[in-house]
């Protein structure tokens, strides 16, 4: 094993290969941080280019782009409130308010260092216990997946502001409803298309995500044009940025919990970073002593948790890909394609037959994260100045880039129209003050829920009992139930005691 590791180190630490990783990370960061141009798109564009390269060169380059692009999403999320991927949707919740309070440097610093630590820890898990984790991933049958979906749904209630939980659930059901549109892949039936062929594909999550966030945000941004607003703290100080590292380390329990959530969710094929950040955020809020301060942009852990989790998921997503040949998300699917074109069969025997390649992936992963963190120190000062650019220049540029991004995901104008349509939906929701994050969650979870539910029922001859009887799925469902029932219960008790005290006082007054 050690000689393979050394061979991997030797293969990666070639000047040209290191340069390739660095360029990949830099390109990934730029693309990932621009809303609309997503990590999926950048890998889709890169993969064909790597076909003509040597594998020892192509893999590090792809790993660089992968790490850079997913990590870069945090910049758009924090500075513009527009997440580039579902993976950074959770970062918007507190990162943007923090930046709006004038603490952009702090928010970015927290996110960057949390990413680095989450990513590195998941990389260690990848190297040390990948085969073990792969076994865990394989033990997840459709019952467990469905339970996990229910659990993620229950997170919506703990994430929403007080008294708005029902509305958040309504938003989630809008997402679920929209996810029904189109052809059901397993049964081959089309639903809710109202006779339109183009609707048969259903709605893809990325145009929906970008539309829901970008259009309302950019429309409301127009209000500020020409107005002398309070000037945001845009001058960047390296010392301030670096000092957030201490703040991140100080939150070690949040960091560890989120990393753990990220890895566990990341190793499950098909779930990936998109959900882990949201789960991590809601769990951080649940275990916080001051949950009411979440969403205000005050607390460090509210930015750390989602970012540590989504980067931890990246290492996690590589585990099923390398150990089982099963892609965790669209990006890893494309990397598998690159492997296949180079004549390598990704599968359970990859470790045995191509141990050298596996180690190149491992080493490149760490190197990419190191470069990523390093480059951020040069990259953040530039991006942070972007807030100061007058909005009338930023808005059309971003809209055009979103258009290009949505189009190139699937080479279809329909997705661009979806972008606008979801933008209008997001705008209406913005006006009636309904959160948009649950819509995305519903859209992502809907197909997964349906597939796993029908598989579970088919395997179990139509019985719902296995959901409760299988230990893991039963446990997850129990936790989901508790997280739905407990907060209102405690809130009700608090209210009760709060009511009792004033009534006593008022009695005293009258006496």
């Amino acid at each position, binding site marked *: 094993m050690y000689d393979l590791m050394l061979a991997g180190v030797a293969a990666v630490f070639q000047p040209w290969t290191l340069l390739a990783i660095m360029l990949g990370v830099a390109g990934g960061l730029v693309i990932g941080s621009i809303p609309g141009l997503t990590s999926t798109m950048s890998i889709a564009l890169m993969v064909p280019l790597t076909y003509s390269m040597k594998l020892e060169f192509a893999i590090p380059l792809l790993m660089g782009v992968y790490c850079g692009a997913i990590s870069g999403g945090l910049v758009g999320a924090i500075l513009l409130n527009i997440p580039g991927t579902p993976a950074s949707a959770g970062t918007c919740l507190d990162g943007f308010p923090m930046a709006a309070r004038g603490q952009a440097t702090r928010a970015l610093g927290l996110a960057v260092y949390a990413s680095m630590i989450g990513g590195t820890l998941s990389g260690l898990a990848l190297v040390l216990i990948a085969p073990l984790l792969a076994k865990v991933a394989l033990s997840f049958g*459709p019952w467990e997946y469905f339970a996990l979906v229910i659990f993620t749904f229950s997170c919506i209630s703990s994430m929403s502001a007080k008294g708005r939980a029902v509305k958040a659930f309504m938003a989630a059901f809008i997402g679920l409803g929209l996810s029904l549109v189109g*052809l059901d892949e*397993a049964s*081959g039936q089309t639903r809710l298309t109202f006779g339109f062929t183009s609707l048969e*594909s259903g709605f893809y999550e990325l145009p929906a995500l970008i539309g829901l966030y970008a259009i309302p945000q950019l429309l409301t941004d127009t209000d500020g044009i020409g107005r002398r607003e309070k000037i945001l703290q845009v001058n960047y100080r390296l010392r301030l940025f670096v000092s957030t590292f201490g703040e991140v380390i100080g939150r070690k329990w949040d960091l560890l919990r989120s990393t753990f959530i990220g890895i566990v969710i990341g190793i499950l094929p098909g779930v990936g970073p998109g959900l882990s950040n949201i789960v991590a955020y809601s769990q951080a809020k649940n275990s916080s002593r001051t949950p009411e301060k979440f969403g205000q942009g005050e607390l460090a852990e509210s930015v750390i948790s989602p970012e540590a989790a989504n980067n931890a998921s990246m290492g996690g997503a590589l585990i099923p890909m390398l150990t089982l040949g099963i892609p965790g998300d669209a990006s890893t699917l494309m990397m598998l394609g690159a492997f296949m074109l180079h004549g390598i*069969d990704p*599968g359970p025997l990859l470790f045995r037959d191509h141990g050298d390649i596996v180690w190149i992936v491992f080493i490149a992963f760490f190197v990419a994260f190191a470069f990523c963190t390093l480059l951020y120190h040069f990259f953040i000062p530039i991006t942070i100045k972007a807030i100061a650019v007058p909005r009338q220049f930023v808005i059309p540029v971003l809209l055009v880039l979103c258009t290009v991004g949505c189009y190139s995901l699937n080479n279809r104008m329909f997705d661009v129209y979806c972008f606008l349509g979801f933008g209008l939906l997001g705008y209406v929701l913005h006006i009636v003050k309904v959160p948009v994050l649950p819509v995305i969650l519903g859209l992502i979870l809907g197909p997964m829920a349906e597939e796993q539910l029908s598989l579970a029922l088919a395997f179990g001859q139509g019985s719902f009992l296995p959901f409760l009887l299988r230990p893991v799925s039963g446990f997850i469902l129990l936790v989901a139930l508790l997280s739905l029932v407990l907060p209102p219960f405690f809130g009700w008790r608090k209210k009760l005691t709060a009511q009792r005290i004033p009534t006593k006082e008022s009695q005293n007054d009258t006496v």
Partner: protein
Amino acid sequence: MNKTIALTLGAAAMSLTTVSALAFPDKPIELVVPFSPGGGSDVAARVFAQCLEGHIDQQVLIRNITGARGKIAEVEVRDARPDGYKLLWAHQGMDMGLATGRSDYNYTAFEPVASTVAMNYGVFADANSGIDSVDTLRGKVASDPGAYNIGVALNGFSHFAVLDFLDKAGISTDDLQTIPMSGDKTRIVAAIQGNLTLVPTAVAAAAPYVNSGDLSPVAILSDERDHKLSDASTAAEQGVDSEFAMYFTTYAPANTPEDVVDTLAKSWLAAAKDSSCQGRLAQNSMSVVAASGEELTADLEARYARIEELAGQYQLGTE
């Protein structure tokens, strides 16, 4: 001001395209692949596009358009301008759409250019089930009807492939439980987990799992053994006359000029007959089945007839 610029530019662009008909091809050709990048069909198309280099003067660019089991891409090419610069890379899944009432067109709505690559398909079983050949499958199913299940994308390629195999092997579908699930990898994982017995899938996808001992091959639905799994016997060797490979055919929109189709077909066939190309395809469990012109039309007709027959026999379709 801007409008006039727009108009002149637009007019210039138009005149350029009309001139281009003189020497085909004079700009890159788009090959629309109806499946997501990284999947089996996409890899097949990309390998073949690399083979085409040197056989055609222009680049062939792969353009992935996914959705609705390929229908979105099919309609895109069907309605495109018939100039030969936008082609479709499709397999029999398109014809299955018409046969099951999911769509209202099949290969006849296009101008077939050439059939080049065939991806070997096979039926595999969970290694713990003890099924490793057609005979053991028959025996197990007969002794315990209803105890085994099979995962297919309903009315999709995997469904038809399995039905063709079961029909010719004389195994009744009533004795197997059919579970709707899409995606080769989804089915393979379910089999490894022990939830699924029979897995129809592309050989390339299943090969690593056969080598690791998680799956055992039941039958390869091709006339020859697969390069990757040379121990796995074909259905024909086991006395079952079932051949159901995924034939990738390149289509142009209907009414594409004949000389353009001929030029394309010539390049396609030349690339397919290139021996270095054949080697690379074999590495990915694909073989070359080159056909164009009337030969191809006859093949397509025969394949469609079988699909329709199966659809009728098993009452597939939503209507």
